[in-house]
């Protein structure tokens, strides 16, 4: 599906916090898993949350787009770690960007696919002519119970995308497809700090079924096969799942590599596939086709196909890329990690 009026991405930006904890440091404390499949994950600092990360990612997107923030008709933030249970994240982000007051602002929620959900809504909003530009952000400070498998991966970060007319875009939309069902693989009840997950149940009936079907249906609809794509980005809850679904669909390791970040930053939940997509855009050349497939527990996947235009190439050394944030790292030990994540107060 795509709107009648053709749209694309006119600017994008990412954010990853500075702190890292290595997976073997978590293993040293908990000894709770047999083997480790990633190096480290990002950790937000004491003064960081979903709002501060969304603001920096969006500022990077605005700088790349070089538009007046007053022209943004919607600021939509997808996350499952809202600093306020009631009070929009999006109004604070919109205010900090200078997009208020003549704009729409809202928060989106669908576990780890809230970011691509906001992107799809922004595509519809701009595609229908209701706004010239719309900003969609996927961002999280992910929660994982200490000692749980999730603690090895639950990280922080996000990416922002400004949707606008195709003729101004650095990558235009060819189509999108969503696939959802009621699958209780992972959830968090109100007032609970940590989510529950279904262990092996999170695999076949949840992640694999939804990502595979969304990707397969979109490619069929567009008449493409994996060979037509330069890059593919999946939601990255761990290093095994995206590799396995890529292989099943017929994608190669080379196509997966540019947006495959989980081994060095972990799983930033709603920020995971958007960050991977931003990293893929950083590497893209004009004409490169990219498949983005998110996954949100509960469960569903959004698949989107974008093709890079001549405007993907920007010779501006001041623009921050995903790899700039990855290489900015300060390693912390488990005790410091507990302090930064406020774990001493959450038990």
């Amino acid at each position, binding site marked *: 599906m795509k709107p009648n009026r053709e749209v694309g991405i006119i600017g994008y930006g990412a954010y990853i916090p*500075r702190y890292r904890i290595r997976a073997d440091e978590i293993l040293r404390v908990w000894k709770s898993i047999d083997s480790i499949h990633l190096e480290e994950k990002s950790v937000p*600092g*004491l*003064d*960081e*949350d979903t*709002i*501060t990360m969304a*603001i*920096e990612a969006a500022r990077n997107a605005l700088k790349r787009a070089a538009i007046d923030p007053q022209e943004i008709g919607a600021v939509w933030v997808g996350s499952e770690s809202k*600093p*306020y249970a009631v009070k929009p994240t999006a109004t*604070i982000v919109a*205010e*900090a960007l*200078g997009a208020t007051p003549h704009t729409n602002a809202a928060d989106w929620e669908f576990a780890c696919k809230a970011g691509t959900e906001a992107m799809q809504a922004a595509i519809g909003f701009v595609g229908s002519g209701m706004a010239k530009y719309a900003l969609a952000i996927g961002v999280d400070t992910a929660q994982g119970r200490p000692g749980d498998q999730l603690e090895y991966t639950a990280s922080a970060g996000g990416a922002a995308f400004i949707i606008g007319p195709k003729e101004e875009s650095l990558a235009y939309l060819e189509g999108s497809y969503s696939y959802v069902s009621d699958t209780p693989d992972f959830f968090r009840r109100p007032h609970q700090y940590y989510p529950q997950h279904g262990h092996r149940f999170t695999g076949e009936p949840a992640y694999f079924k939804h990502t595979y079907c969304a990707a397969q249906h979109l490619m069929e609809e567009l008449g493409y096969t994996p060979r037509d794509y330069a890059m593919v980005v999946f939601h990255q809850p761990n290093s095994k799942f995206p590799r396995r679904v890529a292989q099943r669909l017929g994608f190669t390791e080379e196509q997966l590599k540019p947006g495959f970040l989980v081994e060095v930053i972990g799983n930033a939940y709603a920020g995971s596939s958007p960050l991977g997509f931003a990293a893929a855009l950083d590497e893209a050349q004009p004409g490169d086709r990219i498949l983005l497939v998110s996954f949100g527990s509960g469960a569903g996947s959004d698949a989107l196909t974008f093709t890079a235009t001549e405007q993907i190439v920007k010779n501006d*050394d*001041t*623009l*921050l890329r995903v790899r*700039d944030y990855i290489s*900015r790292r*300060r390693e912390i030990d488990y005790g410091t990690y507990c302090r930064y994540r*406020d774990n001493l*107060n959450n038990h």
Partner: protein
Amino acid sequence: MARKKRKVKSMSLARHWRLQDERYKLIGRECAACGKKLFPTRDICPHCGSRDLKPYRFAGRGEIYSYSTIYQPPAGYEGFVPYTVALIRLDEGPLITAQLTDVDREGVEIGQRVEMVTRRLREYGPEGLIVYGYKFRPVLKG
């Protein structure tokens, strides 16, 4: 983070709300008479006495003029200790005070280039307002 229960008073909600332009966007004033840039916002230009001041958005870059590390913080900032506060000379001229972030104590130097980021300044306990505003960190790029 400090988890003391401290309810926000309605007066401070309004005060924090009024300061959003300064805290989120570094909006100060430019004097129409002498051209000086002012931060924080003022009603009268301290350089020439003019009242003809217009909003001016600072680019958010400057260098560290001086700094100090805080071990005995004021109420509300206990969770960040130790943290470094700096006087920063903005590229447009004004000297402002701000907390540094994403730095290690040993890595801060006078003359260091820094840039504005928006971070949590404090929160009024788990039930209260979260206050966001400017801090500065070493320039990442460019």
